[in-house]
């Protein structure tokens, strides 16, 4: 089983559009996982059927039982997150600020604080129009994106791959450099960076690459909107070579991505577009790269 993660550091580089294209090209052989659980958009292009949905709980939430509370205020004293507030003369825990550490519950002399499991989102197992399976999720608003929901999505995707005897897992990774992206990368075989030749895009590529270097995996890159700034594109190319990242393709700045999005489909479904051809080639090269590595033929 091979797991490929598509990431970008910076938002808006085309990560999700490219992930969706790869998912479509991979068809039913590929298990697709959307690990961008905070701003999950992959479903807008792939139209999964949300056939199976489950709540996901992670961490704890403290709640004060007003019947037992004698308003001594010890909970407010120990809370480092300013989660205990006075509401109408009573101590009350603001859900948004509670970190779920349980310190207050442990020291409450009246044992008036209960710790409950916290729902942080939902995850889904769906069928796609390709016949393939997609595992995806939606983080609840304001929830902590600790990477646990991301880990759950990946675990379920691997489970689905085992059940169905599939060789490939394609992951739309999380943005940034924090816990969700680390969870997205954990245990993967390859990462595809999607970048753009902008000062911010290049800056974020280098930052996220610094993180990826800590994991042992094959690295490849697609430069989207390459014609926007040819000079910067050359700098990106030089960086890829220096860092030992396989350069898969340069894609033009093309509104076909947006047009496909408006139609709710992927750009590879638009016949005859040069973008579609470049993405097909990228997907083939990526698979070949991983297949040759598996058999040890890789130079």
């Amino acid at each position, binding site marked *: 089983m091979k797991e490929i993660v598509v990431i970008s*550091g*910076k*938002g*808006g*580089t085309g990560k*999700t559009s490219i992930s969706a294209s790869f998912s479509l090209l991979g068809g039913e052989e590929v298990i697709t996982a959307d690990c961008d659980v*905070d*701003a999950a*958009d992959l479903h*807008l292009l792939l139209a999964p059927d949300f056939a199976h949905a489950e709540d996901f709980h992670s*961490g*704890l939430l403290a709640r004060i039982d007003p019947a037992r509370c004698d308003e001594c205020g010890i909970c407010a004293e*120990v809370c*480092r*997150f300013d989660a205990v507030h006075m509401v109408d003369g009573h101590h009350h825990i603001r859900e*948004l600020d509670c*970190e*779920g*550490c*349980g*310190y207050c519950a*442990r*020291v409450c002399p009246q044992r008036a604080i209960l710790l409950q499991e916290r729902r942080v989102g939902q995850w889904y197992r769906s069928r796609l129009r390709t016949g393939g399976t997609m595992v995806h999720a939606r*983080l609840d*608003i*304001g*929830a*902590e*994106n600790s*990477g646990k929901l991301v880990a759950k999505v990946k675990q379920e995707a691997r489970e689905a791959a085992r059940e169905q005897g599939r060789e490939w897992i394609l992951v739309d990774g999380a*943005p*940034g*450099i*924090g*816990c969700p992206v*680390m969870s997205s990368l954990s245990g993967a075989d390859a990462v595809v960076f999607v970048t*753009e*030749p*902008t*000062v*911010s*895009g290049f*800056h*974020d590529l280098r*930052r996220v690459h*610094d*993180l990826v270097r*800590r994991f042992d995996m094959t690295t490849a890159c697609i430069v989207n*909107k390459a014609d*926007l*700034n040819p000079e*910067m594109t050359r700098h990106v190319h030089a960086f890829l070579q220096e860092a030992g990242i396989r350069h898969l393709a340069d894609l033009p*700045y093309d*509104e076909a991505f*947006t047009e496909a*999005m*408006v139609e*709710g489909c992927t750009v590879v479904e638009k016949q005859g577009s040069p973008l579609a051809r470049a993405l097909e080639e990228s997907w083939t090269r990526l698979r070949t790269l991983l297949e040759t590595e598996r058999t040890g033929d890789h130079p």
Partner: protein
Amino acid sequence: MRVAIASGKGGTGKTTVSVNLADLLAQHRPVVLADLDVEEPNSGLFIQAGTVHQEAVHRMVPSWEADQCTFCGVCQEVCQFNALIETGSEVMVFRELCHSCYACSELCPVEALPMTPMKIGDLSHRRTGALDLVQGCLDIGQEQAVPLIARTLDYLGERFSRDTLILCDAPPGTACPMIEAVKDADFVLLVTEPTPFGLHDLKLAVETVRGLGRPCAVVINRHGLGNADVEAYCRQEGIPVAARLPHSREAARCYARGERIHPHVPEVAAQLEMVAEFIQRIEQEGAA
């Protein structure tokens, strides 16, 4: 007044709006731009400014004092984040998992777990003309952005009065880093693009901002691209559209080169002026 500039989706132009708007406003009045997108702080790439202040930001985590420890196991029992493991001969502290709640440290009967600082990132404050730029930057490998955002906000509170205009470039998404950056803002500007991704993530952002009880308006970036669904949504929800920045390759090229857009693309500059006026109107209404 503190204005948060946020967006559900990444890459919609949050930083572009923040930087160009701050630059425009600074031509007439003092303004602070705070980059709270600490995982990928990019505002500073567009602004050359001299350093006013720089500091390393830490958060407190326990460190184990072997001599004191009696291996009672309380620390491991109280930690909800599995950041401590007591093996019988050692207490291992996994600092990245620690949420700095102090429970293990303060409940340890023999004070064997004093809290010590761990560096998580840097805060910098720079200035050019009437524009102050305050930026948090998370160290690579650090998983939690919120403590650094909180410190950056505290710094703003220490350094600037409440009537200073502060524009906060917020992290994307609707999870806790975005909430931290937005929850105490006086007003929220949501930057979106007129595409299905933009609309989908805008709806989540609106729900979040309304949940926090913050007033908001929308700035549509790359207007002319995609479709009219974002406009229709804003109308239906009664959310004001403060401006529509036209879709322009020239603007994209300026951005790519790390240049400010308003001096080069007059159509964009005109719309940014509208955002500036919008903000100043809210400011006056707030003061009245």
